[in-house]
């Protein structure tokens, strides 16, 4: 601030002319009038002013801005009021009296009273600028003659209050100690209040309490010891698994895995240790263990013919063997198929399942009633279950169901296997008076199941009972060649009771009963013999696919080794050649597929009679020789299990049998008892990610990712899109790919419906435009220029139309997008997603389906092979199948029958390239193939960079908006923001097939560098129409060559299409 003595004389003179006393020019006013032209107050300053005024009472005004001008103009007549105004301003401008310039004085003002005069003078000083400005209006300023003490004091009081309020109330979000200047800060201030200046301690204390409250309100009320006490822990665990079901191995997994909540379960995603390559090696050379207990089992119980009749409506022989296949029906093999909505094939797919028939008990049970287990993925269960009920005409739950739910929820596990806390501590607490009348039960099975909801439905007309066995069994999957030795070492077949005993006294009465029956004993011995033979077979792939072997084993915890050691196959076991040969050729006979696990009552009793871990350890500690084998005698549990061989890669030519293994089905409650022994024999554990890798290397579609035509797949795609979009939005636009420039229309989802539709329209428009019979198509095809022209035209058209569309859509569409994109919507998607999905599927279901007819797929597979001199196999195969040649004529009926279909293909990169999710599969142009022919190292063509019209448009709009804002003064900020995410294609997509220089054929759903093949490999879907079109146009020795381009790259890479069947 400068004193008025430096005032330029011109200004002073002017002031004098206007009749304003120089004394009125306070330093502030002066500075103001010199610094910035006060009339054009900038926006920022206005905001600042508003901020300053926030905590002020309404009757108080600060001495800045033009507000004062008006005030003065209005209140100008009332001297009294005016003086108040000045007083107030004075108090805020806060210029101390001694700063009053000496060179100025009050020459003309008649001073009646000393006090008011002084204050007035000060007021004038603060108000100088306004006064000066007021001079323009031609009104000379008058000084009030008197003031009233009471009003004056009131006003002061209000000011003081406002000031106090402003001081005490902190406006920022920071904590108290953070507002301190740096030199006053001390170490550990946030922890120790006493390090703060005393005046701030109180506030800091409050803050500290508040945050502590926010952080942990639970559990701190108890000390850690109390929290970890078994009973409380159990309560806590039970509470936590109310929402999402825990598998029995949950705790084990939670300590070692990244857990995710998926499909209503808590599942291990992948191990926390680095294990990508190690898990692959385990699958290939050793053994990988997975807990698949989250898979759902549905049981159908009824007459064989009735079940078959009902289920025949849901599947088709076209897609492969059905429920009625002889070897599956007998119960000796597991089958797998794809279910459709009743009578809707090939549309409205429900999902893939595996199934086992219970082998017909030749012994005592009535041979009429059969049991069938369907194993489904949890995402598919609900759809399949409702459809099953519909097909079997089941409506009301049977009478028995009323009692069965009790089995599930009312703790039927009344006895031994529950970890009742009966140690002394608990008793002590009871004596303390705590209520522990009903001991807490460990939840075994499904903790979320509603006890009153029926889970079994019967049909009066067909007599079929459909029951839901979710979480009633454990399913473990062992993958890899060492799974045989792990199984044979970990499991020991149960010993048979030879002496006849009273069934009542022994806990395992069912086994005593079974041992009395010579038939079942002989079956047991045969099973035992086969099981022993397993150890002599090097790989599960040597068995017939889907072999089922039932077993009854002893408690695997008894012969747990002291140390973890890898189980290796022993040479001695491999000597028994003739039997092994028989086993490999024939598989396990039907009798041996029988297992007591089919009997619910036995399972229940087995679950109940499990010796708890604690008891077992107690007995171990009481052994005479520490560390020796525990012999439980008759108390040892006998557990019925079922072993099911899982064929690995059966299709294709290389890596046959890769990833084969065994599934083990156990009754519930026994999960950990089998889990640990497997791990102690050297099995490595994998999670969901490893399962995905397994299915990818096998070339099998994974559930529900790769079933875009089933409801679960649609839902999955939606969720995935939301997740990816959110992730994308987290990056600033400069740090993320601009997909519009890359020519990627939908980087986060695969628009299957539109792809098939576009291909269909492409074909029809071309046919119409040519107005010639189909035979002349070949001519057109041979003419490269015309085709390209056509494509170019398409492109231009589509671009035009799309622009028009986007222009139209601009106001409405983006907002919608924002809605669905927001994380809140993604979370709420579970509730609303159903409806949306329903709408969507209603639209898409009519539009596309996945081709699953084996005959057609075989035909396509043969056509995709390049016909070269070396590929003898393909030629031979085609001759053998007496196949049709690939011509227009043969393609037409296929196109007519399946106008909008997708084909599941696997792709292997020829050279470089690493395919990702949603990589685009494109048709190479003729030049590309020529270049590849010339140069063997040719990497692939490049897409030219696209322009981003939306960016420029957005910029323009923004500019316009800002102009408008300046005119109108804000308010429209919210509307400006409602623009699509920059870098993504807003609104509806144009013709996706012809958007880029290479025609789009399909998308990759799974792709990565394959450790098994040593090059990039991908799995995905292509449009059937497009595929045929491509194959027709390609030369015979280069058939099946495609280009792949990842969404965020312009580089195309060559790959070969293979259809495995």
């Amino acid at each position: 601030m400068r004193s008025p003595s430096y005032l330029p004389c011109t200004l002073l003179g002017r002031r004098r002319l206007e009749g304003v006393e120089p004394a009125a020019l306070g330093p502030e006013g002066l500075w103001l009038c010199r610094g910035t032209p006060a009339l054009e107050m900038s926006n920022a300053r206005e905001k600042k002013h508003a901020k300053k005024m926030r905590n002020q009472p309404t009757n108080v005004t600060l001495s800045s801005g033009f507000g004062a001008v008006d005030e003065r103009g209005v209140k100008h007549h009332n001297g009294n009021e005016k003086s108040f105004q000045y007083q107030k301003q004075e108090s805020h401008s806060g210029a101390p009296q001694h700063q009053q310039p000496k060179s100025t004085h009050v020459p003309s003002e008649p001073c009646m009273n000393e006090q008011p005069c002084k204050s007035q003078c000060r007021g004038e000083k603060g108000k100088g600028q306004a006064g000066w400005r007021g001079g323009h209006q031609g009104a000379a300023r008058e000084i009030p003659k008197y003031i009233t003490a009471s009003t004056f004091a009131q006003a002061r009081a209000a000011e003081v209050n406002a000031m106090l309020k402003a001081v005490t109330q902190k406006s920022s979000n920071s904590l108290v100690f953070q507002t301190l200047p740096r030199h006053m800060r001390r170490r550990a201030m946030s922890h120790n209040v006493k390090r703060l200046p005393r005046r701030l301690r109180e506030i800091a204390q409050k803050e500290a309490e508040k945050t502590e409250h926010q952080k942990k309100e639970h559990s701190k009320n108890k000390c850690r010891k109390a929290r970890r006490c078994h009973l409380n822990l159990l309560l806590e665990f039970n509470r936590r698994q109310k929402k999402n079901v825990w598998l029995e191995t949950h705790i084990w997994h939670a300590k070692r895995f990244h857990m995710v909540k998926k499909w209503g379960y808590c599942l291990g995603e992948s191990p926390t240790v680095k294990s990508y390559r190690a898990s692959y090696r385990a699958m290939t050379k050793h053994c990988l263990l997975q807990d698949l207990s989250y898979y759902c089992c549905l049981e159908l119980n009824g007459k064989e013919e009735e079940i078959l009749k009902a289920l025949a409506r849901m599947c088709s022989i076209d897609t492969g063997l059905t429920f009625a296949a002889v070897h599956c029906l007998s119960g000796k093999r597991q089958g797998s198929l794809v279910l459709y909505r009743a009578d809707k094939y090939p549309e409205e797919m429900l999902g893939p399942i595996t199934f086992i028939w219970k082998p017909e008990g030749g012994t005592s049970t009535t041979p009429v009633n059969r049991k069938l287990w369907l194993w489904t993925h949890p995402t598919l269960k609900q759809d399949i279950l409702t459809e099953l009920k519909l097909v079997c005409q089941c409506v009301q739950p049977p009478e028995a169901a009323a009692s069965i739910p009790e089995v599930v929820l009312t703790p039927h596990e009344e006895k031994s296997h529950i970890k009742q806390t009966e140690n002394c501590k608990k008793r002590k607490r009871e004596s303390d008076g705590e209520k522990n009348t009903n001991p807490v039960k460990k939840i075994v099975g499904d903790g979320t199941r509603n006890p009153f909801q029926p889970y079994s439905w019967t049909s009066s007309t067909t007599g079929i009972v459909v029951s839901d066995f979710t979480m009633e069994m454990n399913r473990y999957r062992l993958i890899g060649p060492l799974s045989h030795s792990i199984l044979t070492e970990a499991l020991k077949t149960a010993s048979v009771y030879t002496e006849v005993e009273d069934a009542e006294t022994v806990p395992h009465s069912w086994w005593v009963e079974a041992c009395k029956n010579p038939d079942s004993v002989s079956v047991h011995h045969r099973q035992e013999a086969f099981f022993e033979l397993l150890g002599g077979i090097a790989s599960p792939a040597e068995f017939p696919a889907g072999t089922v072997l039932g077993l009854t084993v002893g408690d695997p915890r008894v012969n747990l080794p002291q140390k973890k050691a890898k189980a290796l196959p022993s040479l001695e076991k491999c000597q028994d050649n003739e039997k092994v040969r028989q086993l490999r050729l024939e598989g396990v006979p039907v009798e041996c597929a029988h297992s007591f696990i089919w009997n619910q009552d036995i399972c229940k009793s087995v679950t109940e009679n499990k010796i708890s871990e604690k008891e077992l350890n107690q007995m171990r500690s009481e052994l005479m020789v520490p560390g020796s084998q525990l012999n439980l005698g008759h108390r040892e549990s006998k557990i019925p299990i079922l072993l099911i061989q899982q064929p690995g890669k059966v299709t294709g030519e290389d890596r046959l049998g890769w990833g084969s293994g065994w599934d083990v089905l156990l009754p519930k409650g026994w999960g950990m008892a089998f889990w640990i022994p497997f791990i102690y024999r050297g099995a490595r554990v994998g999670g969901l990610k490893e399962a995905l890798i397994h299915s990818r290397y096998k070339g099998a579609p994974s559930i529900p990712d790769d079933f875009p035509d089933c409801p679960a797949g649609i839902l999955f795609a939606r969720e995935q899109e939301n997740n990816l979009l959110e992730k994308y939005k987290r990056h600033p636009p400069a740090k993320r790919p601009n997909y519009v420039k890359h020519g990627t229309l939908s980087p986060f989802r695969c628009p299957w419906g539109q792809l098939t539709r576009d291909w269909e329209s492409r074909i029809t428009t071309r046919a119409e435009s040519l107005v010639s019979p189909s035979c002349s198509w070949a001519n057109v095809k041979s003419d490269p220029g015309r085709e390209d022209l056509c494509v170019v035209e398409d492109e231009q058209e589509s671009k035009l139309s799309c622009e028009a569309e986007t222009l139209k859509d601009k106001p409405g569409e983006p907002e919608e997008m924002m809605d669905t994109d927001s994380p809140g919507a993604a979370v709420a998607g579970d509730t609303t997603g159903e409806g949306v999905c329903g709408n969507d599927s209603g639209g898409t279901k009519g539009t596309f389906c996945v081709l699953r007819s084996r005959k057609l797929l075989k035909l396509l597979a043969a056509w995709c092979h390049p016909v070269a001199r070396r590929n003898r196999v393909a030629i031979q195969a085609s001759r053998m199948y007496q196949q049709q040649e690939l011509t227009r004529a043969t393609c037409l009926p296929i196109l007519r029958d399946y106008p909008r279909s997708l084909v599941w293909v696997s792709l292997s990169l020829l050279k470089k390239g690493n395919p990702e999710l949603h990589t685009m599969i494109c048709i190479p142009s003729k030049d590309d193939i020529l270049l590849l022919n010339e140069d063997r190292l040719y990497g692939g063509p490049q897409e030219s960079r696209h322009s981003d019209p939306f960016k420029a448009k957005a910029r323009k709009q923004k500019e316009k908006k800002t102009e408008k804002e300046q005119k109108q003064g804000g308010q429209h900020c919210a509307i400006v923001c409602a623009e699509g995410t920059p870098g993504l294609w807003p609104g509806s997509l144009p013709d996706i097939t012809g958007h880029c220089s290479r025609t789009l054929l399909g998308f990759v759903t799974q792709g990565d560098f394959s450790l098994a093949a040593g090059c990039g490999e991908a799995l995905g879907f292509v449009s059937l129409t497009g595929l045929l079109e491509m194959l027709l146009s390609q030369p015979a020795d280069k058939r099946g060559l495609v280009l792949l381009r990842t969404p965020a790259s312009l580089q195309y890479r060559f790959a070969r299409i293979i259809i495995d069947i």
Partner: protein
Amino acid sequence: MAENGETWGASEAELDPVEYTLRKRLPHRLPRRPNDIYVNMKTDFKAQLARCQKLLEGGGGGRGQGGCPEIYIHGLGLAINRAINIALQLQASSFGALQVAANTSTVELVDELEPETNTREPLTRTRNNSAIHIRVFRVTPK
């Protein structure tokens, strides 16, 4: 893990391909010792040769100093040639320190015929293929 490059048998014409799909199973084999090498036609020849040399010389680091005194090279079907080739190369490059001893055998291969119709049982067929097992061992110079 297709260690075999076996060719197709000649007698395929008897079965109707419309009714059955042919699936080849893995050949039966004994548990693998560390000094067993199964030769295939897919891996690069040089790589397989290098693997054998590494085993014999023990240069791999993890296997101790001397390496294996003997290794077994197995070849099945089409890979017999290559197995022999590898063994001879090893012997030639060793300046007489290595000797080879070959054994031949017949391996039974199982083909599974998966039915295409519900009424048929799956069938298995066996066919034979020749295999060679070459023992490459170190001889101590006298």
